[in-house]
């Protein structure tokens, strides 16, 4: 319960350790309820927030040691974010293609117009869109699913090694959700990108991830191979999460009747 908190020091992330191997791309799901520190963790991995203690290493380098724009850009080239709500991630007054071109300019070094457009088009093709569909359009002119794909395409321009996706499908329509989730699978298998998939949706995490990490109030309570942890949870909190998932199969025996 967040509730009637005063002004206390708050350990949003408390003693969390994990590692992903560069040579073996995987989808690593971080699961937890709101307030469990998932987003704070994502920000620290993206190096926009410095940890109070501890080290985050990327390819052996401590990311808090990066000084200056060049080193930071170098890091951003390899680690890219995707955010929850694409309508909030994009400025409503800015055309979507400008984000793609800016990424191509800064991260992929395409200074000419033709190169930028080619890079944007190539990235958009990877997510099932094309530059012709996106060019000159404002965010509100695209559907949520298209916009989220465009966000993923933008992240792909610099050919990153790691994508940090913070609740990427929770704002996307049910009919399009699985196509985004499947896209992550394709990215892992074909482009060999590792993905940190932050979510509270256990069902999609079970569907796509290789490993999961369950967080509660900033602490890791359980971690391991996704299928194993989610089908046979050990920690009481994971068990609680597992039992709270509603399923379409509950139609005969409502989960809620017992609770009510």
């Amino acid at each position, binding site marked *: *319960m967040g509730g*009637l908190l005063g002004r206390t020091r708050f350990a949003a992330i408390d003693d969390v350790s994990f590692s992903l191997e560069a040579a073996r791309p995987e989808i690593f799901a971080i699961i937890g*309820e709101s307030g469990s520190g998932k987003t704070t963790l994502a920000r620290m991995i993206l190096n926009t927030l410095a940890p109070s203690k501890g080290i985050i290493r990327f390819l052996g380098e401590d990311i808090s040691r990066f000084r200056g724009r060049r080193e930071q850009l170098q890091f951003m080239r390899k680690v890219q974010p995707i955010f929850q709500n694409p309508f909030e991630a994009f400025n409503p007054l800015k055309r979507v293609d400008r984000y793609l071109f800016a990424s191509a300019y800064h991260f992929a070094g395409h200074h000419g117009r033709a190169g930028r457009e080619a890079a944007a088009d190539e990235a958009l093709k990877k997510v099932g869109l094309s530059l012709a569909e996106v060019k000159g359009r404002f965010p509100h002119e695209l559907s949520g699913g298209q916009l989220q794909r465009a966000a993923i395409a933008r992240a792909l321009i610099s050919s990153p090694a790691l994508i940090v996706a913070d609740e990427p499908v929770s704002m996307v329509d*049910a009919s399009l959700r699985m196509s985004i989730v499947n896209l992550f699978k394709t990215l892992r298998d074909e482009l060999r990108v590792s993905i940190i998939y932050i979510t509270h949706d256990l069902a999609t995490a079970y569907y796509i991830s290789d490993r999961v990490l369950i967080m509660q109030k900033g602490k890791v309570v359980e971690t391991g191979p996704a299928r194993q942890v989610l089908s046979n949870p050990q920690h009481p909190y994971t068990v609680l999460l597992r039992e*709270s998932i*509603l399923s379409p199969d509950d*139609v005969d025996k409502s989960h809620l009747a017992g609770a*009510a």
Partner: protein
Amino acid sequence: MDVALSVRDLRAYYLTSHFGVEREVRAVDDITLSVEKKEIYGIAGESSCGKSTFIRTIAAAIRPPLRVLGGSIRYSFLDRDLYDLDERALTEMRWKHLSCILQGSMNVLNPVRRVRESFKDFASPHMGLARSVFFDAVKAHLNRLRLSPTVLSAFPHELSGGMRQRVAIALATVCRPEFIIADEPTTALDVVVQKDVLALILEMQREIGSSMIFVTHDLTVHANISNRLGIMYAGRLVEEGSTRDILRDPMHPYTRHLIASLPRIGDVTPKKGLSGAPPSLADPPSGCRFHPRCPLAMDICRQAHPELTALAPGRRVACYAVSPLVQPAHEAAAARKATKADKSAAFLQ
């Protein structure tokens, strides 16, 4: 069974005219449905399919550019059509007979006033009780919802999402209304809290014995809470039936896809997303609005939109591919008119 709400041929469009360009967005197009007493009627559909417009229309909470262009809405507690009421009668009705639980409870509760004031504003005029008696009743009600009376003196931002949503439920149920409209009440909550809030809604609905329209895009929530289910696509109802029938045996290709793509724990078979994008309601596809994305589309689907046809007791589907009984809507309407004329002619003779 008694009918609590009956909606017939409801059409509500957004009509705008900017710089001489007229636009109409057909957010609710020819919806006919009825909700029985003590029933939870679920409405499912993706965003921009018109479900929020629909509930705004049946709650008489519309303002321009949204306009109701036709149809009737009748509640059991009203003696006439909802849109024949004047402003005073509407105010009288709201909260006492018809209340809402909305998605962002932050939007219901005034962020700069304490929760107590919201109760005073919303519920007090309808209960007609003296101040102290009223707050005793509110406290007793909060207690039933397992909320401490101290929330009354809190500001909305001081409460967690789940608590805020429970306060919103308390507000919506304190006058014991006959009809409750719930619009995505648990969408912003995480799984553990969602389950508690849903259980609470169900418990309250049973205790008060009210009817409910429950809107969410999440079919797993519907599986747990709704008795009957209506699936909306692009402003139209495409399938309706008991929740069990729809989840077990979906008939409309859109519903089939929605249910087949639900991820489940323990199931690793590949799930497909639907290709294409939801249609724009300002310029909907001709004929059946699902045809550009439909795997079963035939020629007729592009020409005339299918009538929502009863194929089994309590089961209505609007798809030509499902049954030959489904007719184009204009032909079905003409046929209805003809039989009506026949009947009245027979009556006159």
